[in-house]
């Protein structure tokens, strides 16, 4: 794809069912990028599946949540000298066919973080009303905070350049790396941009967003967004 060193970080928690096909798809559709699986305390064969696919694996001894897994991935990427890190879900939601489009603005230096967005153009994504309401709310908050629109704050399909990874390896939200993260990054002076993507239904496994988290999510993200606004970006 490109000469720049790109690492796709795949956080995986009990994803043995879908991981193999996700990894195979990345290899087929984006042969130029490296892949790292962060096994976030899985109790199933996630690590074995990744190793059989010939992909390096870093394993958390306990489950930290998607934020912690990404943080580990970014640090690994940074220490191994990668220029760009991409977060890509293990469950097959993110189509690696869009990797090139996602990477392009970061590699070209036009922005520091690029977000694969379902809403930049009509991509046929339909969320349940409560998710939709939350997405509207947090994109409104992000707009207020950042001063420009981020239409898809909850997208987990993003590319980060080396400077952003350097920050994120030390400071990253623990559980939901969404609106508060974007606000923090924008306040640190990083440029965010959005790239239209189409996302698929997850192949198997459970979403990170279980019922308890559905109740906790709005509270936590509202508070964290507020904190991201009033905290001094260090």
């Amino acid at each position, binding site marked *: 794809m490109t000469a720049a060193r790109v690492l796709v970080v795949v956080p995986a928690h009990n994803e043995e069912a879908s991981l193999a096909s996700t990894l195979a798809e990345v290899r087929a559709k984006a042969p130029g990028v490296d892949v790292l699986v962060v096994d976030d305390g899985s109790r199933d064969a996630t690590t074995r599946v990744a190793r059989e696919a010939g992909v390096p694996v870093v394993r958390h001894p306990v489950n930290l949540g998607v934020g*912690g897994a990404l943080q580990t991935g970014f640090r690994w990427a940074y220490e191994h000298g990668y220029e760009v890190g991409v977060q890509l879900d293990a469950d097959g939601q993110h189509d690696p066919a869009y990797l090139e489009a996602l990477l392009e603005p970061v590699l070209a230096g036009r922005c520091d973080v690029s977000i694969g967005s379902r809403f930049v153009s009509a991509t046929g994504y339909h969320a349940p009303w409560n998710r939709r309401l939350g997405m509207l709310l947090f994109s409104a908050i992000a707009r207020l905070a950042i001063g420009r629109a981020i239409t898809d704050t909850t997208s987990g399909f993003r590319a980060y350049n080396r400077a952003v990874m350097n920050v994120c390896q030390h400071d990253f939200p623990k559980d939901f790396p969404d609106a508060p993260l974007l606000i923090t990054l924008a306040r640190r002076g990083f440029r965010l941009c959005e790239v239209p993507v189409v996302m698929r239904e997850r192949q198997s496994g459970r979403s990170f967003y279980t019922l308890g988290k559905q109740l906790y999510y709005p509270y936590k993200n509202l508070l964290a967004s507020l904190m991201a606004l009033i905290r001094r970006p260090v």
Partner: protein
Amino acid sequence: MTFLSRTQLITALGAVLLALFVLELVRRRKLSEEYSLLWVMATTVIAVLGFSTPLLTWITHVLGFLGESSTTFAFGLAFSLAMLLYLSLKLSRLGFENHALTRDLALLRDEVETMRHGGGGSAR
């Protein structure tokens, strides 16, 4: 001063027993000195207030509470809340540290495995 009332006796006894228990826990290294401080302070307050009825009555009057028992409960509740907040604080900090240690451990293990396999990529 006349003989101690029954309430004063029970309170004093309770406070002394609690203080002894806390100190014993410190001696057996079950409780750190840091945490014992709050408990020793609490037992001291219980002992003093329980013993000195005039002091308790005075505080009740100054704070405008309805009775001495209200004052006692108010102090107890305030202490419990303070302790709970302090523990949440400690727990959060432990959580952050645990999070960081887990990530470090994962990366170190990866490094060790890479070195064992002759440096050919991360744990193959």
